[in-house]
């Protein structure tokens, strides 16, 4: 699989190394849903830096990951959307409404740390 999930403290990080097929995206979604509970994670980061296209299916799966994480008590952050990818998503009419995003992994970690500091339940 072109994506691996790493655990760092209370945060799960999916690092995607190459283009993902629809099936691999679904596998990633399911792996997150399972591990958020197993590791009692408070945060989930999906790093899409390596993806050169986010189409409607990928966008929908990212939304599913984020909403599922939220229902399991964790906050999801999508990081690393490349500038051309962001522009193309806007042109196509795709959005990640209501989902936290950050420029890169570092910013994503900082965002989750700030949320944790304010109290995760407040969000």
């Amino acid at each position, binding site marked *: 699989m072109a994506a691996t999930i790493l655990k760092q403290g209370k945060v799960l990080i999916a690092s995607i190394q190459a*283009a*993902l*097929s*629809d*099936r691999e995206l679904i596998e990633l979604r399911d792996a997150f849903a399972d591990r958020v509970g197993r590791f009692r994670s408070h945060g989930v980061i999906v790093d899409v830096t390596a993806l*050169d*296209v986010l*189409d*409607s*299916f990928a*966008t*929908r799966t990212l939304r599913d990951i984020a909403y599922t994480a939220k229902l399991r008590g964790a906050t999801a952050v999508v990081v690393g959307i490349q500038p*051309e*990818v962001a*522009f*193309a*998503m806007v*042109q*196509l*009419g*795709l959005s990640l409404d209501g989902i936290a995003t950050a420029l890169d992994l570092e910013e994503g970690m900082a965002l989750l740390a700030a949320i944790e500091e304010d109290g995760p339940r407040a969000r």
Partner: protein
Amino acid sequence: MQDEAQVAVESESDIVTARQRVRAMAAALGFSSTDQTLIALAVSEIARNIVSYATRGLITLSEVDDGGRAGILIVAHDDGPGIADVELAMRDGYSTARSLGMGLPGAKRVTDEFEIDSAPGHGTTIRMTKWRP
């Protein structure tokens, strides 16, 4: 002889292949990386439509020239069930599959020319062109 490439779309992994092939061709034709991304996105959406509705189909990518400009022509054909109401299928947010309903209207928005020819029982052909500015 101008460049032409064909991608058989028979499973969801072919969607990835199709968008990689079209991106490589768009790059070779000198499209900007932003346009390459838009073209790859449009192809991803129509390839997924084939997999979702028709099971299999063929995408043909070719270099075109209108005398002054170079462009890329993408033709997607399938012998699937066809689309009963093309106008409805082109509407944002309309989907009969479990998707966002942004595929076809989105592909139309990000290309310069977009034509769809479909009828129930006669399959679907989509022709879209992106011109290099």
